[in-house]
């Protein structure tokens, strides 16, 4: 477990650095607030409406697809790591075929998503 201890140390170290920066900026930078300066930037005009509006559902779909495929990637990682340590050709071929089946299923899903048009950004 000792090898993992630096994670905690570096976390505290870097967090301290980031927070110091934020505080420093707040303390040292001089402030002269005007109404126009405190408005959100919109090319010099007064902002029209709130920025928290509806946006394209595509972003949501991409996020969902990402989760699906990233989980597949997580399954592939340990498989790839142990692959070399399997000595015999038989065990290796077995593991290989297993994973090919997995990738084939993944690929069918991928083709389905493609045909459904989820990768078409320009289509409504």
């Amino acid at each position, binding site marked *: 477990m000792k090898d993992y201890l630096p994670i905690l140390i570096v976390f505290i170290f870097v967090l301290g650095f980031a927070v110091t920066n*934020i505080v420093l900026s707040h303390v040292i930078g001089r402030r002269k607030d005007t109404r126009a300066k*405190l408005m*959100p930037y*919109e090319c010099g005009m007064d*902002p029209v409406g709130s*920025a928290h509006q509806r946006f394209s559902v595509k972003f949501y779909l991409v996020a969902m697809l990402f989760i699906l495929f990233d989980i597949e990637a997580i399954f592939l990682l340990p498989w790839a790591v142990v692959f070399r340590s399997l000595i015999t050709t038989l065990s290796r071929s077995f593991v290989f075929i297993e994973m090919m089946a997995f990738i084939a299923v993944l690929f069918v899903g991928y083709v389905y998503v493609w045909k459904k048009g989820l990768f078409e950004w320009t289509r409504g």
Partner: protein
Amino acid sequence: MSSVLNSIDIQYVLGSLIKIALFWVFIMITVAYMVYAERRVLAVMQNRLGPNRVGWQGLLQPFADLIKFIFKEDIIPLSVNKVLYIVAPVVVLVPAMMVLIVYPFGPRSAPLPGGEMLSNMLNNLGNSLGYDWALDLRHVNLFVTNFNVGLLYIFALTSLGVYGIVIAGWASNSKYSLLGGLRSSAQMISYELALSLSVVAILIPAGTLDLVKIVEGQGGTWFGFIPKWNVLALFPAGIIAFIVYLISAIAETNRVPFDLPEAETELVAGFHTEYSALKFALFFMAEYVNMTTVSVLAAAVFLGGWQGPLVGSYPWLGFVWFIAKVFFFLFLYIWLRGTLPRFRYDQLMNFGWKILLPAALVNIVLAAVLGVIFL
């Protein structure tokens, strides 16, 4: 108190802290001069001068920039969600910098010049204060730590940065920020798939996720002259993985030609439009640290990390080889920026999902087939 300082764990913690601080300073200097180099090299490519006034050839420019950042007015617009607005730069920077502990800068137990004197001095100091120290600094590992999930640790932390970008875009309550944040996050998660899948193909010959061991496994040569780098392993699977990795790494760090989140002609500055002073600097730093991280991975996983001629006899040379490889990739970023135009957003998404992702998947199959036959 003395018993606490006696324990080996405290010494380990202190040792790691010192190493982290040193490597952190190194990364900060790299980032600062990367910004400077980018401005100068781009200027040369575009036949102009670039910053050359602060110090000789403008070499003190990064420090001038830093001072300016500190004294800039820290504007917090009225309409922002204040807590999230302030937290966002921290959320982006902290995971970006946390990965430095697994950077494999150089080999294990390199002889430290003056290490014997240093350890004697420290031990004497400890003994005179009544502690029982037995530090041995004659050999040091040129990395902070290594554990068997090093690569996963980097992937996990670099993807955490997306949260900060989404938070920044949403909390700013500005249209440009929101659109920039959404684009940024969608782009980063899309290319992250290709990024991690391309590395999977390399893990088949490498056989471990520990970055130090991955580099150690790339020592030696094939036929006496071809370096045993993973990029050439299981030919051509290694080289395909490398290309896919490189493209998605550039997209992952939002750089030219994939710098749509910061397409200034349409989105001003993307998710950090509303940020100023050091808060902006934190985003800026995080971007450059992330560039360093993907370059480190490219060098360590594909190009043999610190491996190179004469490393066996001079371990510190490994550090030089490693830095040279990393700087090559950092230069590549600038080069691309001076050369390529920007993608359109639908082209970007198409490229990521329809070309890179299947290419990475097929490459895994190819690597596995070659692995069954040749490994």
